[in-house]
């Protein structure tokens, strides 16, 4: 009996976790109410350098909210590694927070679960209207043609962070504007004994963000117009190969970065080990690691040729955080009020300044605080040359499948194995086969 039990316990650990949460799922189909109008639970994503820093940033604002409305907000900052699982569990069980942050790329996937309050015209009117928000940010809030599943909260874009001292030592006057220039500059930097470009080779999401942009620059997409996975078209294969070749062929990404997944590349850059880093809104993070603002410059991510723009000149994804309300909340009015508060001009300025992100709210974006050289690069990128990741229900699966394929290719490159068009295509083929059959 004991051995049978031991076998059973292990084998269904996963089912057990799921089932245990499913047991409490009585209210999961509920449509929301105002049964407990005095409290709210809020899951914040980890935006600052640590969870403690996030609490320090958010708590005074939540206190302000309490003063205005009398509603107490219970805050939990959820680390990125747990956030999606926590949301899924909350969705399954119906036992979740009232309001929560989501990565904007998950919007369409989570929208498909039907767990979130749809932001139709009536709901948007309660928070001041849809046209308060920047269009590019609204493009990452759910599938096209459906009411958004969430409201934009912070906007971010990728930029090229470069170490001014290393550039000066290597005799490079301008940050590279094209990939060819970046590779050429890499030779000069290497000659000075420094690493060229940092990357998170084993971080699935980072891999997706970069290969998505490379695909755009090759005029390709990971999904067909009707939402089917199309990972093996020539443009996507060329795009993935170009990104991995930064390590395999061009040798600008150090091989050690193939196993990075815990933001080690940011630490390397902050310590002055690497000359360049492609990151989204890194200023606050770099500062917390002891790198002063004056030590680095910020430039747009390179393109194939010419200058950043739309179409094949895209050089960033629309990165950001959205704020969603669980449909079955016990405090629907309070939740809406909280979203209104968090997206108000005043709060947008405070929060986005603290996290070195850009407000997705038009009026707040015009504040002088967001006109620093660093912010103007990010703002300009978002306004002119950023594209939203595919807003399809399978987005989350796509991130994992293709992100893992790129991770494997980096592992090949690091081990000195050849990365060829055929090997890239084979990995992507495998990724495509993991996608749900339509």
């Amino acid at each position, binding site marked *: 009996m004991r051995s049978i039990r031991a076998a059973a316990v292990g084998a*269904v650990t996963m089912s057990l976790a799921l089932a245990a949460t499913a047991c409490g799922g009585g209210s999961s189909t509920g449509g929301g109410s105002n049964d407990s109008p005095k409290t709210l639970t809020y899951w914040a994503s980890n935006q600052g350098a640590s969870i403690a820093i996030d609490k320090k940033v958010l708590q005074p604002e939540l206190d302000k909210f309490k003063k205005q409305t009398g509603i107490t907000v219970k805050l939990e900052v959820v680390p990125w590694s747990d956030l999606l699982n926590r949301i899924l569990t909350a969705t399954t069980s119906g036992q979740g927070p009232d309001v929560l942050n989501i990565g904007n790329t998950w919007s369409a996937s989570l929208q498909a679960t039907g767990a979130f309050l749809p932001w139709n015209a009536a709901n948007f009117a309660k928070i001041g209207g849809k046209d308060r928000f920047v269009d590019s940010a609204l493009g990452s809030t759910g599938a096209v043609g459906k009411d958004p599943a969430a409201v934009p909260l912070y906007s971010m874009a990728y930029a090229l962070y470069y170490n001014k001292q290393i550039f000066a030592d290597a005799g490079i006057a301008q940050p590279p504007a094209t990939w060819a220039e970046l590779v050429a500059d890499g030779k000069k930097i290497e000659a000075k004994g420094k690493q060229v470009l940092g990357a998170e080779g084993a971080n699935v999401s980072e891999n997706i963000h970069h290969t998505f942009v490379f695909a755009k620059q090759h005029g390709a997409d990971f999904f067909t117009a009707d939402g089917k996975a199309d990972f093996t078209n020539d443009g996507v294969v060329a795009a993935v190969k170009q990104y991995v070749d930064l390590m395999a062929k061009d040798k600008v990404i150090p091989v050690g970065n193939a196993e990075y997944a815990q933001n080690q590349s940011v630490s390397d850059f902050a310590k002055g080990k690497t000359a360049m880093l492609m990151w989204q809104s890194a200023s606050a993070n770099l500062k917390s690691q002891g790198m002063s603002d004056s030590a680095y410059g910020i430039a747009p991510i390179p393109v194939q040729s010419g200058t950043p723009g739309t179409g094949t000149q895209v050089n960033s994804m629309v990165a950001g955080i959205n704020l969603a309300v669980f449909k079955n909340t016990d405090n629907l009015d309070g939740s809406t009020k909280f979203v209104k508060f968090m997206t108000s001009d005043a709060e947008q300025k405070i929060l986005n300044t603290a996290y070195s992100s850009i407000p997705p709210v038009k009026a707040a974006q015009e504040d002088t605080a967001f006109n620093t050289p660093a912010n103007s690069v990010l703002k300009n990128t978002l306004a002119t040359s950023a594209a939203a990741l595919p807003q399809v229900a399978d987005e989350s699966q796509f991130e994992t499948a293709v992100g893992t394929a790129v991770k494997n290719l980096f592992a090949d490159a690091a081990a000195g194995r050849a990365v060829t068009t055929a090997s890239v295509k084979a990995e992507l083929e495998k990724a495509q086969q993991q996608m749900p059959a339509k």
Partner: protein
Amino acid sequence: MRKNPSDPAAPGPRRRRGERIRRIGLPYLLLLPALVLELLVHLVPMVIGIVMSFKELTQFYIRDWGTAPWSGFDNYKVSVDFDAPVGKALLHSFFVTVGFTLLSVGFCWLIGTVAAIYMQDTFRGRGFLRALFLIPYALPVYAAVITWVFMFQHDNGLVNHVLHDQLHLTDKPSFWLIGDNSFYALLIVSVWKGWPFAFLIVMAGLQNIPKELYEAASIDGAGRLQQIRRITLPSLRPVNQVLVLVLFLWTFNDFNTPYVLFGRSAPEAADLISVHIYQASFVTWNFGTGSAMSVLLLLFLLVVTGVYLVFTSRGRKTADV
């Protein structure tokens, strides 16, 4: 002939019978809370897991998974279709897990037994060593494994520092957390974490072997190795049978070690089945397929455990005769 208990002419047996029921019933009554909890904690989730495996439980239905359509055996068909990618990946993961488990259990048992036998002799510092050996077992898994992650790092890890920088055994620093070496990294951590348990159990088993046996053997001229082969190992047999089974089940199902080492997408060489199933459900959001794979794994482990128990108990009966 049976007496009719409702026969008023036979009050004696009825009273006695009532007493008997009360006497026998009490232990069962006392067991009831445990039984109910046992059902609630183990059996109900298992049954729900099995039910889920017959449903098409994707992201479109998880919010109210009662509405998920029944899919019959589709999830199972997908899982065992070894020509298609999902089944092929599952089979690959299964073989990796079998290989990993055999090696890990083998090493854990060997190291644990050798250490326990050596720790039988009284010498200075024995207590200290025993305590030292148990540390990996006592450490929280996450803290222990994350330390190994740091040690296995390519650029700054201790392992490469020793192997490459100090001993010059490799041409260039190796990768341990990605690529083919990840299997060995996983094996090393698993053995490091698992052998103290074998050590503990075998050490307890050794206490039960009468000293006289060894004395008699040494009078008869048996050397140390012969004593181990003829006395220690046969006496440890019942202990070993349980130990190996438990180690096998724990190792086969180990989730924490690979998950902390490699994160949510393990390298192919170290793609253990528990993480694979996790990925098949939580990452692709297809909980039906994940549950079907779990049920298959449960069946496999039940078969292995059953065969093992039959085989070993038959062996024991023969030994008893």
